[in-house]
């Protein structure tokens, strides 16, 4: 029988135990809640960017205007014909503001593909401007948005006539950057990211594996190799922006390489991810049991043959996993690329390693700074693409590890 005082104390101690466990669960819950909140916010804000408002109007392909290449004029006269009551100059300008300033390109392409259109009338769906887009998608009400009362009225009448529709936003995937949200896309940034990634992979993978093989299999234990080891461990923890400063001073100012080039971006990311790849590769090499090496040595293989014929193939899944994870991290990196001028406003899609380019995370940064409401959803959508890309890479790494993992 325990006396009452002990029982009370025991109850208190057990309550403390439950509280302590609860703190632990609460911490995990808080961390996961943040993760969920982050993802829900991004997806909730971004999914609408994959659709785009279009307005159907009847365009008459006037031969004279087509000849002069004045396709913007065609758009304007089509709108004017749709709303004949609008005559005042400033009202007309407001009316034309409903349609994107890039809408004329559609007409130009149509005429180029089918010259027989000239002189005819067709109903064409034209890209709406971002202000209209925001209202149609319900991100802002017609009153709180940037449309004025007249524009809202016209939009309402168009919607009543069933001329306004939402279509899949292909521009977002194919186009480069633009000042007009409805014409901006991540195409250029994705290509830039891929180019930089190719440079990083081509340099960091062989160099990283070579370093790891040397340190793990060949290096004598002396001051010099110890220095290299300490160095690599410290480099892995240097803030990424310092690598950007290195890139600026070394590649741009000393070697006079072009600014904003994916080549330079790739080089900076290489230097940044090299230590991580080396550390991962060394761990993978270390996991190969010494008995394999000894057996091969015993059969007369040279040291290099032991490595290339036996150790490296066995360690390759681990090395690849580490490389993929390091590369995925490098793709999401922004700060060092700001230093080497990849923040420029670039409309064209880069075609080579020396063309000015931007990358996906920098594009996110640039759009996040833009004041237009429509860029918020586009930023979120760009983030979704970035995250999807990273998720695929990490899944690949996990699958690789699961499939080829060996327990010795």
């Amino acid at each position: 029988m325990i006396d009452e005082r002990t029982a009370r104390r025991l109850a208190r101690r057990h309550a403390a135990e439950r509280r302590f466990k609860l703190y632990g669960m609460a911490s995990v819950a808080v961390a996961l809640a943040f993760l969920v909140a982050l993802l829900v916010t991004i997806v909730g804000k971004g999914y609408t960017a994959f659709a785009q408002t279009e307005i159907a109007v009847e365009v008459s392909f006037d031969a004279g205007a087509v000849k002069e290449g004045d396709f913007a004029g065609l758009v304007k006269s089509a709108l004017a014909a749709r709303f004949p009551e609008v005559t005042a100059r400033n009202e007309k300008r407001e009316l034309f503001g409903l349609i994107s300033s890039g809408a004329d390109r559609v007409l130009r392409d149509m005429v180029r593909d089918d010259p027989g259109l000239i002189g005819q009338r067709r109903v064409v769906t034209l890209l709406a401007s971002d202000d209209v887009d925001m209202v149609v998608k319900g991100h802002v009400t017609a009153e709180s948005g940037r449309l004025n009362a007249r524009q809202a009225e016209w939009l309402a009448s168009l919607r009543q006539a069933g001329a306004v529709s939402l279509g899949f936003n292909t521009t977002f995937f194919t186009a480069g950057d633009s000042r007009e949200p409805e014409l901006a896309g991540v195409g250029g940034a994705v290509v830039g990211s891929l180019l930089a990634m190719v440079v990083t992979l081509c340099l960091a993978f062989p160099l990283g594996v070579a370093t790891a093989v040397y340190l793990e299999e060949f290096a004598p234990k002396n001051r010099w190799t110890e220095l290299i080891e300490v160095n690599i461990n410290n480099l892995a923890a240097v803030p990424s922006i310092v690598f950007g400063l290195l890139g600026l001073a070394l590649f741009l100012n000393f070697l006079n390489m072009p600014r904003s080039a994916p080549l330079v971006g790739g080089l900076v990311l290489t230097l940044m991810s090299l230590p991580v790849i080396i550390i991962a590769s060394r761990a993978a090499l270390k996991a190969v049991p010494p008995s394999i090496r000894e057996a091969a040595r015993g059969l007369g293989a040279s040291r290099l043959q032991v490595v290339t014929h036996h150790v490296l193939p066995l360690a390759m899944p681990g090395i690849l996993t580490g490389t993929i994870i390091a590369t995925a991290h490098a793709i999401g990196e922004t700060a060092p690329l700001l230093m080497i001028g990849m923040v420029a406003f670039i409309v064209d899609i880069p075609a080579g390693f020396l063309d000015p380019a931007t990358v996906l995370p920098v594009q996110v940064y640039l759009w996040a700074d833009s004041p237009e409401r429509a860029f918020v959803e586009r930023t979120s959508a760009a983030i979704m693409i970035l995250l999807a890309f990273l998720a695929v890479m990490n899944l690949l790494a996990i699958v690789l590890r699961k499939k080829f993992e060996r327990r010795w």
Partner: protein
Amino acid sequence: MQLLALVATLLLLSAVGFHLGRRRAAARSAAADRRPHSLPVYYGSYVALWSGLPALLVLLGWLAFEPVVVRSLVVDSLPPAARELPPERLGLLMNDVRNLAAGVVTSRDVDPDMAAAAETYLRLKRLGAVAVAVLSLAAAIGGLGLALRRVRPDLRARNAVEKLVERLLIGASTIAVFTTVGIVLSLLFESIRFFNAVPIHEFLFGLEWSPQTAIRSDQVGSSGAFGAVPLFAGTFLISLIAMAVAMPVGLFAAIYMAEYAPRRLRAIIKPLLEVLAGIPTVVYGFFAALTVAPFLRDAGTILGLSVSSESALAAGVVMGIMIIPYVSSIADDVITAVPRSLREASLGLGATRSETIRQVVVPAALPGIVGGLLLAVSRAIGETMIVVMAAGMAANLTANPFETVTTVTVQIVTLLVGDQEFDSPKTLAAFALGLVLFLVTLALNVAALQVVKRFREQYD
């Protein structure tokens, strides 16, 4: 893209060398009726390496020194008046010459001297391209021929190839050292130039930061003040907030995962927490600026507090979330590394699990945990995108988390993004800040690694 073609040709030559070397080794040993010393592959590799490496060295040497050589030759061709300009002015002039040669608009009117210089520049560039192509191809073919002549059955091709490969491996492993040297040198050189303009004590202890220096002498105001204390204070404040979030959450999460969670739950939670570390920081920045900051501002208004929309709190909290997995995974590792016997002894004496954790496990794991926390602090100090997007630019010297502060990394980005004049103290200040950042994080990392290492030794 001529460069790519050249590299492709060189690679092709190496491949041809590989093939020829192998064939020749087979043919010669058949003719001499004796077994070759090495496997055929090694004779092939021997020839391929001899043809590829010298050519590659020529190419790399050209890539490294071409700009310098061309520049000095063009400068020599300039009229004496231009040659005597101070270095910065000369740099600008050379920039214009380059732009003129590339057909881009220049910042000044084109005079005949400049046109001539641009002409020289273009001529030298073309000459250099032709010369390097000829030289590297000659090196490749020469190396190939020489190596091929040496291929005989008694050539120890394997030993030669292996020795060379080992040298290459050593070369690769020095890149890490060169990276560090490069970082230190580039930061140091630019910082020294900065400290020539702004005394070092003014930079380290000055209380006012406004890097807008006058570009023209008649510009009003801004003489530029480079006292970095507000930046250090801001960085410290935001890191402190981040650690105040990350430390309890990360530690308790680690304790829960290591001591309480069933194995299956742990297998789900751990990777999910690590997702937090895999999300790019620019995404956190966007989240902080768009969601967390307005939320905190509105919450502050309801409570009657005035919270700036670029408050240190928003940036710090979001940064803390980002750091949680760094804290939790290291703490998890060290807690699991504490030997079972310690726990069992404590439980056997009648302590509850939480008492065991608080009084036995955590004290035993403390060095490792402290090391992990130090690493997390160094992450927080060096973190850039979250603060660039969510914290402000204004260099306030304040300890109020509801106000706007700025950090070292934010200022590096603002000073270097956009138009810059490379030699102004404004630009150089970024390198001085970078140097401080590098030194502080380096010290933290070294300390953390030492602590963790000592802890590992204790229980291994």
